[in-house]
């Protein structure tokens, strides 16, 4: 899979592009399919590596992630159910767009985009772009934190003056 950093970076870019107020919901959606790691860690000692590889397919699929999004949207505040569900789905969509761009690496579950309706594999060979993308993400997100700190310091200076 592309690193979590790349997923968070893309989620943050979308949050700025669509001027999303609840960025945390979108960011959560962007890493939601990687909940498979918990399934993997649980299943490997109990059922073995091969079975664990099979079990992560439904979790790390657009359909499975949509089901997870429906669940998580239902436990978030009710008044913004539709908005939360949309943000989660947007994040999930961004996740799979990035995952499909690393074909043929990191396992088939990244390319089974129509599971459980089809076993066709969809992917683009864009692995060479992922490394620079991650570095760019590191710089962008660090810049966001630093600029936030700078603003806070400036506000404090204003209060002192």
């Amino acid at each position: 899979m592309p690193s979590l950093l790349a997923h968070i970076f893309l989620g943050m870019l979308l949050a700025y592009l669509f001027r999303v107020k609840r960025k945390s919901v979108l960011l959560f959606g962007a890493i939601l399919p990687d909940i498979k790691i918990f399934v993997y860690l649980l299943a490997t000692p109990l059922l073995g590596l091969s079975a664990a590889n099979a079990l992560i397919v439904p979790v790390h699929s657009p359909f499975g992630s949509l089901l997870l999004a429906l669940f998580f949207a239902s436990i978030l505040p009710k008044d913004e159910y539709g908005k939360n569900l949309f943000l989660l789905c947007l994040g999930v969509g961004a996740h799979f767009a990035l995952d499909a761009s690393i074909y043929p690496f990191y396992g088939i579950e990244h390319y089974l985009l129509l599971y459980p309706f089809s076993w066709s594999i969809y992917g683009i060979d864009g692995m060479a772009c992922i490394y620079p993308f991650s570095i760019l993400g590191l710089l962008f997100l660090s810049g966001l934190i630093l600029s936030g700190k700078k603003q806070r310091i400036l506000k404090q200076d204003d209060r002192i003056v």
Partner: protein
Amino acid sequence: MAKYDWRRVLGVFSLALLAVLIVQSYYVVPQHWGNMPATEYAADHLQEFEGKEIDVDGTATDVIYSEKGAIFYLNPVAKGLFSRLEVKTEGTSIKEGQSGVNVQGTVRNGILEADNIRVSPIPWYMESFFNLAGIFFFLFFSLKEWRIKKRFPYLEEAV
């Protein structure tokens, strides 16, 4: 009759459906990519693909170099159907623990002769670093938003 919130019902139903899919995948998924838990079993079945071009993707976790080339463990994923393969390598080194290894080749005499071996350009330690950085940034931005909303609800519009 008690009234239930339809969103909660839908959420629980979604989770139940996902649980059914997970249980089902234990039986269904291996039929599609060939689940071979025993390495010896996989080595035996390699002969079934004699003369055929195959494509294997996985993680090299156990590399032993031999005269034939490299023998390494591969997760049973992608179009290939094996958990262990003998691969003839020429000028390509695959390190132990290397993630993101893709081999395309032809099976000859029970050995996968690789025409093309590709290794992910991102080294494993950079991948780990990026993952940790991703967790950090996620927690930072999410907790920041949550804390501001909780302490200063009137500022929610500004966040």
